[in-house]
């Protein structure tokens, strides 16, 4: 419960400053950055594991670590997007929305009851829809927010329909009791399909991905980054928990379902990413392809599955946020959002270009970066079921993704047509990018990080 208390305290502090005389934008932002860093560090020291509220709230060592990962991502976002945040006329509203969503995600990761899961899921998604609309003057922002709120409301409805049938067949909402009552009857399979469809919606797995690119393109940059890393990561944590816990006895049924979804997600995500010209849409489709790998890691029903997913999400946060950070900086200072205009960025901004290149290497999974190891662990988990053609098909998709990631790296380092002015990142942005870079390189080389995560289970 410690992590949630800290998030609540920061939330309350921002709210009080908003209601009171208020602080200068930059002071408030620095304060929140500092508090988020402190609470990330504190949450890593471990938490009590007693169940609370009659089993509604469960906390294990892995769940506590996953919450630290989410908090860390929120801290990175507060660092990396300081351009937008400082200039926004709604900084405190933005912070309140993002922090309440973060609070919902923390509760979601440690929920032990379907009612709690639903409540925290809504707490995590409704504020995001409001935050997506924060670029009030831009038409596209409200369009994206509309698409987000409608699709998330619809998917909650589908989720609840699934939950109602789970309740009808097992008579309880408690994870432990349900796990005992799951016998794989056709009704329960049906209920599981509804539940899974709702999660696929929220994680934007194919065929439920249609909202993703529009919402990502329309939202303000920090909100897009938040949706694509924190929101997706927390969904992955919860889904792996459900599949390996509550629905473990049905693994024969969901394995084949997951296999189809993984292949569709990888292929469609990659094919659409190939032809994107807008950097935000490009990152949206690349994140859809990455979700395919997360789901691949869940297919093997082994104790290490959740650890591999957690490690991947940590690496994915570092690499994707670095890419978003550079894109946000370039977009805020020069207005460039289409990929061809990045041509020759390395000439005038070597630091930014190298950061972008490193993060794309990591997203593609090139060996010295951590992205390689993260993907390898997931594929090893998937291979455990013995369907090697399936794993090979997934690996071929890595080769496809290499093409479009490297296309951008080539653009960055080729001769510029129009020169891009030299952009000096703010100190916090520089710090955030450096943390990402160090993390991407070291998290792969220092094997004790993965070892540590795998002992938490």
């Amino acid at each position, binding site marked *: 419960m410690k992590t949630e208390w800290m998030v609540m305290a920061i939330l309350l502090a921002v709210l009080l400053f908003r209601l009171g005389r208020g602080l200068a934008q930059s002071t408030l932002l620095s304060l929140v950055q500092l508090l988020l860093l402190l609470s990330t560090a504190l949450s890593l020291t471990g938490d009590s594991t007693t169940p609370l509220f009659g089993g509604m709230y469960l906390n294990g060592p892995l769940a506590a670590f996953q919450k630290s990962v989410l908090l860390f991502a929120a801290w990175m976002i507060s660092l990396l997007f300081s351009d937008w945040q400082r200039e926004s006329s709604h900084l405190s509203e933005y912070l309140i929305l993002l922090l309440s969503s973060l609070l919902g995600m923390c509760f979601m990761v440690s929920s032990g009851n379907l009612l709690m899961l639903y409540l925290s899921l809504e707490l995590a998604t409704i504020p995001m829809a409001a935050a997506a609309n924060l670029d009030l003057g831009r038409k596209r922002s409200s369009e994206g927010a509309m698409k987000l709120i*409608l699709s998330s409301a619809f998917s909650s409805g589908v989720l609840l329909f699934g939950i109602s049938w789970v309740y009808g067949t097992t008579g309880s909402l408690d994870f432990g009791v349900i796990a005992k009552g799951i016998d794989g009857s056709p009704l329960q399979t049906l209920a599981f399909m509804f539940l899974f469809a709702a999660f696929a919606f929220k994680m934007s797995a194919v065929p439920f991905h249609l909202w993703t690119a529009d919402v990502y393109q329309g939202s303000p940059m920090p909100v897009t980054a938040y949706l694509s890393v924190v929101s997706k990561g927390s969904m992955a944590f919860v889904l792996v928990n459900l599949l390996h816990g509550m629905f473990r006895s049905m693994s024969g049924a969901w394995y084949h379902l997951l296999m189809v979804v993984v292949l569709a997600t990888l292929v469609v995500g990659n094919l659409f990413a190939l032809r994107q010209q807008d950097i935000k849409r490009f990152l949206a489709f690349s994140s859809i392809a990455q979700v395919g790998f997360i789901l691949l890691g869940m297919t093997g029903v082994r104790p290490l599955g959740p650890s591999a997913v957690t490690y991947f999400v940590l690496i994915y946060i570092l690499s994707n946020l670095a890419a978003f950070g550079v894109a946000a900086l370039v977009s805020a200072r020069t207005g460039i959002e289409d990929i061809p205009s990045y041509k020759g960025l390395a000439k005038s901004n070597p630091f930014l270009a190298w950061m972008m290149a490193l993060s794309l290497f990591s997203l593609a999974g090139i060996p010295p970066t951590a992205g390689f190891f993260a993907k390898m662990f997931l594929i090893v988990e998937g291979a455990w079921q013995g369907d090697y053609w399936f794993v090979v098909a997934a690996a071929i998709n890595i080769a496809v993704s290499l093409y479009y990631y490297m296309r951008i790296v080539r653009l960055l380092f080729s001769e510029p047509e129009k020169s891009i002015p030299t952009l000096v990142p703010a100190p916090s942005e520089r710090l955030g990018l450096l943390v990402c870079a160090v993390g991407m390189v070291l998290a792969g080389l220092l094997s004790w990080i993965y070892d540590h995560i795998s002992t938490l289970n």
Partner: protein
Amino acid sequence: MTEPGLPHLLFIGAALFFIGVFGFLTRRNLITMLMSVELVLNSVCINFVAFNRYLWQERLDGVFITIFIIAIAAAEAAVAIAIIIHLYRSHRTIDVGAAEDMKH
């Protein structure tokens, strides 16, 4: 005419759910789409209450989750309507077809 029982209620629940899904997918007006989502949520409430009443009477889980669903649906509708009003101010319409600035 038999006494209405669990199957009847579940039939109503399922029918309402799919009417809601159909409405959500075919309607072009944002307010109507929102109403369809409310239909989906209400169908779920019927399911929960029916299961609770006929199968699992000893505990009130089904009724409690229904109360929460109603409360959250209201919150969701409030945010959705705020967004739709803002969309109307900038686009002068609440037809989904008009809100297609971004293409795949």
